[in-house]
């Protein structure tokens, strides 16, 4: 605690806080133009200047921490004059196009210009011709840019793409793509969100609507397990084609939260239907006669509970292999750690000073995890140890140590890792003997990770205080995932690491907690709910009966943080939903959200109503979204098995891995996201598989043909095989030995 004064009033600051942060907390207003809570200070606007008693000059409050007893003045004639002059400079030659500008009034420059009453231009500069730049999903108008550098800061510090930079040239300065003519990035659109003026805008949205016409619906992203907070902005579609509502754009509270491109640009996955009695009766019949329901985890907690009730009432089986894998993993994990969930979270990753990522391609599996790792690396100088058979171009600039292991050898790797991390920890004899019994020579040889690499890991971690282990999606479907889970549980229990286990879909966690899942065996009379079946009910692509997609539903999901988050209706849906079917079958509630308060309390849910769940960030960044599930104690009776034979993968191997911003059949249906389903391999892979760039191939055991592309950024003999277009979640281990056949065109 540092005590100082602002305008003669006592204020306290935490260690590490700046004058600006302390002032804001205490309710003082200091104008800023370039300040972003989640990045390091851009320090480009100088609007945040304050006077202090220790020096004559003005200091920047956004980057200066207070010292004890400091007397700060935030309003004075001198400061007012200084700030007004800055605003006058900002306004020089700024195009007078507020009438058409996408900011349409929600503009920091407009606000501050009015605040400081700048009504005339007293300086002049020769106007330059600066044409608008078209960068795919993003348009950039240098004439509107005020060079605040917020965009470059988020891109570098939070996203990690580091794709844009400021080109300095006096009055000609502008934001430019880094080392390239056109923007080549992951198109998260975060730069659009933070831009205080209309310089960076979404090319799809530009000039289609004014901010004041859009109706804002706060919700949660439906595409991955991070469950990022977002706001759908809705308006009638067009006066020419009728008045149906349409989502125009997605915005977020960019001061504290971040979205990836799928959340920001992949919003039009809604489906439409009308009430068709005949079809409805058929669907009810199908459910009544079904032996099993196969479903995906892209549903709400409430739908999951309805399905569970169907199981309890009619004894149907529930198939969801993806959630079942997570469920079994967490059960095994808990049997060693003693808790039903893990202690880490996206926030704890971002605050770590050391992160180990094991067994997953986080950059595309869960961008929020990637952003948290980038934030940790950039803000805390976190050491990032990345363990995977494949290098990831997108993670390259934050990785401290890359540990490459052989596909399939995860169990050996994590056993060795546990041994390394537990070194010096107080553990039971049983565990000590397990660790001593590991056949290091064999494990190192088979996994191709040497002793020295583990030694390096311990060295890297020496000074780290807040450490997180991120367990990726590969592990969940590994043949020996149960034992791997126990080893992860051991690390959670015995070391000071927090563990985060990544789940795949938006509500994998919720489904795994709410439903008793059966193993998916060939059965007749399977109803597919958002998944394949003999009769399909769902909101993806072609279905026998359509039900609302997640942007047309009220309900909750449980994110990978074990946080219950609410979703709201952005686009109305006229047809029937699962609750209607359940009502016909005698499981009665008026609305789907009546189930929110019935979610199982023994699993940590709190039994609160949907309508009492909030969904917003407070002015100082407080997370007021839903609630976090209570962590439950479970029996700690797991026994870690010996690690024996590690599976081997030789020849041509495909790794199930989606391109950036593609996650599932829903993202595949959106209009803006790039749909690239090509099989990507290195030049070496091409030689091994006897393929040339551009060949059409079929993969044995998979439907359809794909184009093969040689990707310069890849190495080795593992190709990347996108699977987002496939609707069922039953995938198995992500590395797969494949047989490719060239299709002659």
């Amino acid at each position: 605690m540092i005590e100082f004064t602002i305008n003669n009033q006592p204020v306290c600051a935490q260690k590490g806080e700046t004058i600006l942060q302390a002032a804001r907390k205490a309710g003082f207003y200091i104008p800023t133009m370039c300040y972003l809570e989640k990045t390091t200070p851009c320090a480009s606007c100088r609007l945040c200047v304050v006077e202090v008693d220790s020096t004559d000059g003005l200091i920047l409050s956004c980057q200066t921490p207070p010292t004890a007893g400091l007397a700060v003045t935030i309003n004075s004639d001198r400061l007012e004059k200084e700030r007004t002059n800055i605003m006058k400079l900002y306004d020089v030659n700024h195009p007078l196009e507020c009438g058409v500008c996408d900011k349409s009034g929600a503009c920091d420059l407009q606000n501050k210009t009015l605040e400081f009453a700048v009504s005339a231009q007293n300086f002049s500069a020769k106007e330059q011709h600066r044409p608008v730049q078209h960068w795919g999903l993003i348009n950039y108008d240098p004439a509107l840019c005020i060079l605040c550098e917020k965009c470059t800061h988020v891109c570098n510090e939070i996203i990690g793409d580091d794709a844009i930079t400021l080109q300095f040239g006096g009055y000609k300065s502008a934001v430019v793509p880094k080392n390239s003519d056109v923007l080549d990035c992951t198109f998260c659109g975060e730069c659009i969100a933070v831009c205080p003026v209309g310089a960076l805008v979404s090319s799809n949205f530009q000039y289609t609507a004014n901010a004041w016409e859009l109706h804002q619906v706060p919700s949660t992203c439906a595409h991955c397990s991070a469950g990022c907070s977002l706001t759908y902005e809705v308006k009638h579609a067009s006066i020419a084609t009728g008045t149906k509502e349409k989502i125009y754009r997605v915005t977020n509270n960019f001061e504290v939260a971040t979205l990836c491109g799928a959340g920001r640009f992949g919003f039009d996955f809604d489906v439409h239907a009308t009430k068709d009695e005949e079809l409805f009766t058929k669907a009810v019949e199908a459910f009544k006669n079904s032996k099993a329901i196969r479903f995906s985890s892209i549903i709400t907690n409430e739908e999951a509970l309805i399905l569970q009730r169907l199981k309890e009432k009619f004894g149907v089986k529930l198939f969801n292999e993806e959630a079942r894998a997570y469920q079994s993993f967490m059960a095994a994990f808990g049997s060693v750690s003693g808790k039903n969930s893990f202690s880490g979270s996206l926030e704890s990753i971002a605050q770590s000073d050391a992160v180990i990522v094991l067994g997953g391609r986080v950059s595309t599996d869960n961008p929020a995890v990637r952003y948290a790792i980038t934030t940790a690396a950039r803000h805390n100088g976190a050491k990032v140890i990345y363990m995977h058979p494949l290098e990831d171009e997108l993670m390259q600039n934050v990785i401290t140590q890359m540990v490459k292991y052989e596909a399939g050898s995860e169990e050996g790797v994590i056993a060795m890792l546990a041994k390394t991390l537990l070194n010096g920890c107080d553990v039971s004899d049983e565990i000590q003997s397990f660790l001593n019994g590991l056949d290091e020579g064999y494990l190192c040889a088979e996994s191709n990770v040497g002793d020295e690499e583990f030694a390096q890991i311990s060295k890297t971690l020496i000074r780290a205080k807040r450490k997180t282990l991120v367990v990726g999606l590969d592990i969940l479907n590994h043949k020996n995932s149960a034992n791997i889970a126990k080893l992860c549980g051991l690390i959670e229990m015995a070391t000071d690491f927090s563990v985060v286990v990544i789940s795949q879909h938006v509500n994998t966690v919720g489904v795994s907690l709410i439903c008793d899942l059966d193993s998916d065996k060939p059965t007749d009379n399977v109803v597919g709910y958002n998944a394949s079946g003999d009769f399909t009910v769902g909101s993806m692509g072609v279905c026998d009966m359509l039900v609302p997609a997640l942007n047309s539903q009220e309900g909750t999901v449980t994110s990978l943080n074990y946080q219950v988050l609410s979703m709201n209706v952005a686009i109305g849906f006229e047809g029937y939903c699962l609750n209607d079917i359940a009502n016909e079958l005698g499981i009665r509630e008026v609305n789907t959200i009546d189930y929110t308060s019935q979610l199982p309390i023994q699993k940590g849910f709190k039994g609160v109503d949907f309508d009492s769940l909030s969904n917003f960030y407070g002015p100082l960044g407080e997370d007021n979204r839903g609630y976090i599930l209570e962590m439950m104690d479970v029996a700690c009776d797991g026994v870690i098995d010996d690690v024996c034979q590690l599976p081997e993968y030789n020849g041509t191997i495909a790794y199930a891995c989606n391109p950036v911003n593609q996650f599932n059949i829903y993202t595949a249906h959106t209009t803006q996201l790039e749909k690239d389903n090509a099989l990507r391999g290195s030049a070496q892979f091409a030689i091994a598989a006897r393929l040339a760039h551009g060949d059409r191939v079929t993969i044995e055991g998979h439907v359809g043909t794909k184009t093969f592309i040689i990707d310069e950024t890849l190495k080795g003999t593992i190709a990347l095989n996108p699977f987002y277009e496939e609707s069922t979640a039953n995938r198995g281990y992500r590395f797969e030995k494949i047989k490719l056949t060239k299709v002659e065109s």
Partner: protein
Amino acid sequence: MHVEPLQDRNVSELSAYYYVDIPDYPETGWDKFKQVMKRTFKGELFVGLWVVLREMIKFDIHTVKYPLEKLPIGPRYRAVHKLLRLWESGFERCIGCGLCEKICISDCIRMDTRIDENSRKEVTEYSINLGRCIFCGYCAEVCPELAIVHGERYENGSEQRAHFVIKDDMLTPLDWLTSGQQQEYPGFGAITPNESVKSTPLAY
């Protein structure tokens, strides 16, 4: 005649007023009968009929032949809207800012906009529901470009309550513009269309 004599309301040699000669009212029944007969058969009825017949044959009518003929409307009259073009370039004046849509108190203006090939905002659809419009003139007043104005076309009867004018109905046709038929309405920032109107020189 001058007004002075009329101001003297007294009947005298000097004033313009005099007594009219009013015959005595008939008093007996017989007298009343005689008056009726005299008025009926004197032929005055036919004088009137003849005037009507004569004027009808002459086809020299002095009333307005609506709907073939309309009286000129004052420039401030607020009838069906028009969308104007720029004199110098023929471009549409409307920039699609949406202020008219926002200010409209009967919520009857709607528009669709998009980004065009030159990265400018383009108004693709623009409609006003005349059935709701109360012709308050707010839209014309708020328009920063003097693009939307009220015209003089006041007939908007319709068999339905909702009826619309769309952009094509309201926008000045290009040949009207070149032939100088686009009317300019005086007001703040209005121009006087003449040769001195030129496109802005861009010094790039």
